[in-house]
């Protein structure tokens, strides 16, 4: 990202802006604190240039410097991130229905959108009933997970128009997360057929992480495209077998419908 966007005409774009924005994306859940050398390596920039941008971002309040002289994102970046997520109409439409879904079930309710070959969680209400903490560990607002492992991802993919679904399946690398992860494309296609036959309800049975089960349904926009998915994640031992589908399925479907109607 640090290369000039237009090599023929490098002055046309602001390379400082390009590099500065790229710098903000270096910070990840795995690496929330970074030094100048870490950022310089990640961006393929010189250390003095990197230092200059980092200093600018500190002055502007986007980065904070801790006692170790290393940098972390400030709350201003979370504010900006939230403002950006809030610019998505589906997040706005989903916020209250999701809050209600969480309140009625005591389980964590999320809104996922398709993001390349991943599903990204753009809204999330944490449930507090027993076992929920372990299930939700490591997944928060903004987290992305492989689409084939998560209920939200499967619900979205299953409702895509056939050609788009086919194109996306071709792109997928079905990495194994647990012993139950679907890792064959034929098996995934069978799964999508089953989801469509089940009123669009996707079940995730410890495919993303051990002990986590989830259920999801897609939110359809006025043109009939799946633009997001409502997902409830639960501890596996709390909802065994059909209990997940029978008890939580209708609630997830109704919530997804409500959000879709609000988008009309």
């Amino acid at each position, binding site marked *: 990202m640090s290369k000039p966007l237009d090599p023929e005409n490098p002055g046309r774009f602001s390379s400082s802006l390009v590099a500065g924005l790229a710098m*903000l994306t270096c910070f990840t859940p795995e690496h929330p604190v970074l030094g100048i050398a870490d950022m310089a390596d990640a961006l393929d920039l010189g250390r003095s240039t990197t230092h200059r941008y980092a*200093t600018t971002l500190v002055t502007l309040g986007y980065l904070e410097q801790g006692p170790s002289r290393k940098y972390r994102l400030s709350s201003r970046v*979370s504010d900006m991130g939230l403002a950006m997520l809030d610019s998505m109409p589906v997040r706005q439409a989903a916020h209250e229905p999701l809050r209600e879904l969480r309140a009625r079930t005591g389980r964590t309710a999320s809104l996922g959108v398709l993001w390349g070959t991943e599903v990204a969680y753009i809204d999330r209400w944490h449930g507090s009933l027993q076992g929920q903490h372990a299930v939700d560990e490591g997944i928060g607002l*903004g987290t992305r997970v492989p689409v084939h492992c998560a209920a939200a991802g499967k619900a979205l993919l299953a409702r895509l128009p056939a050609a788009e679904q086919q194109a996306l399946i071709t792109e997928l690398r079905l990495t194994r997360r647990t012993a139950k992860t679907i890792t064959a494309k034929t098996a995934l296609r069978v799964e999508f057929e089953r989801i469509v036959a089940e009123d669009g309800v996707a079940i995730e049975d410890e495919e993303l992480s051990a002990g986590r089960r989830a259920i999801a349904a897609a939110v359809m926009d006025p043109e009939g495209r799946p633009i997001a998915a409502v997902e409830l994640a639960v501890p596996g031992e709390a909802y065994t077998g059909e209990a997940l589908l029978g008890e939580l399925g209708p609630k997830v479907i109704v919530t997804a419908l409500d959000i879709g109607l609000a988008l009309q």
Partner: protein
Amino acid sequence: MPRTRLATHRLVGGEMVPSIPTLEEPRYSQSLERGLAILECFTPEQPVWGIAELADQLGMSRSTTHRYVITLVELGHLKQGKKRRYSLAMNVIDLGLSAMASTKLRDHAQPFLADLHRRSGYTVVLAVLDGPGVQIVDSLRGRRRGQGLIDLSPASAPLPVYCTALGKLLLANLPESEQRRVIAELTLTRRTPQTITSKTALRADLQGIRGESLAAADEELAPGMYSIAAPIRTESRDVVAAIGMDAHASMIALADFIGALGPHLVATADRVSARMGYRRDDERHSPGVNGVGLAGL
């Protein structure tokens, strides 16, 4: 990497003055400042901007504004719509996702907990609710006498929800139906003469705590053990966690503990909440670059 081109003018004390050349300001990138200021103009209240409007808003020349805008378009952060007007595009969401994902409760809280621990000398605990138990997420052990009474490490068994300040605070702030479900499954075991053992009394106690910035437990878990807790809220105002401290009756009276440490605990919780995106009503609009309002939440 080519040197930054110069923005032509900047607003100083209400007057447009030529910007200071980058060479004289080697530690500051004005391009970066300007570009980010442009991005922050796009809010849910005003999602669409033209070049001239942006230039006026930020006190920049139109040609400079245009250069930053086309850079942001090229990066996929802005898109051009009808009549050469611009709005946020998909990659900005990417930036938003990264920003949110890279900020976790425990990481957010850690420096603030450490600060409170260092200044007070008391054990400081970060916890979340998990059904009938309070799950400790992080803790810093105090050095004062009587602090080791109860094991408060993340590895310890969950604390009971009905006789700790942390538990009562988290339970009090649950949605009603969720709170009912948790209470229905509770067994209120008498731990001390002060433990609340009737569900009616517990509900009354929770009623008083809901929405408050501090909760206390008065020797309800163990004899001689006082505890206080304050809520951590997210952008959606939901109480997702709490921080707490405890003290031994031989060291301090409960009223003094609340009076002396309570404000610090609440201030620390507020700082963590701010990091989680929570804004009180009176601070929903914080000043941005050059006084430009931050995107309204």
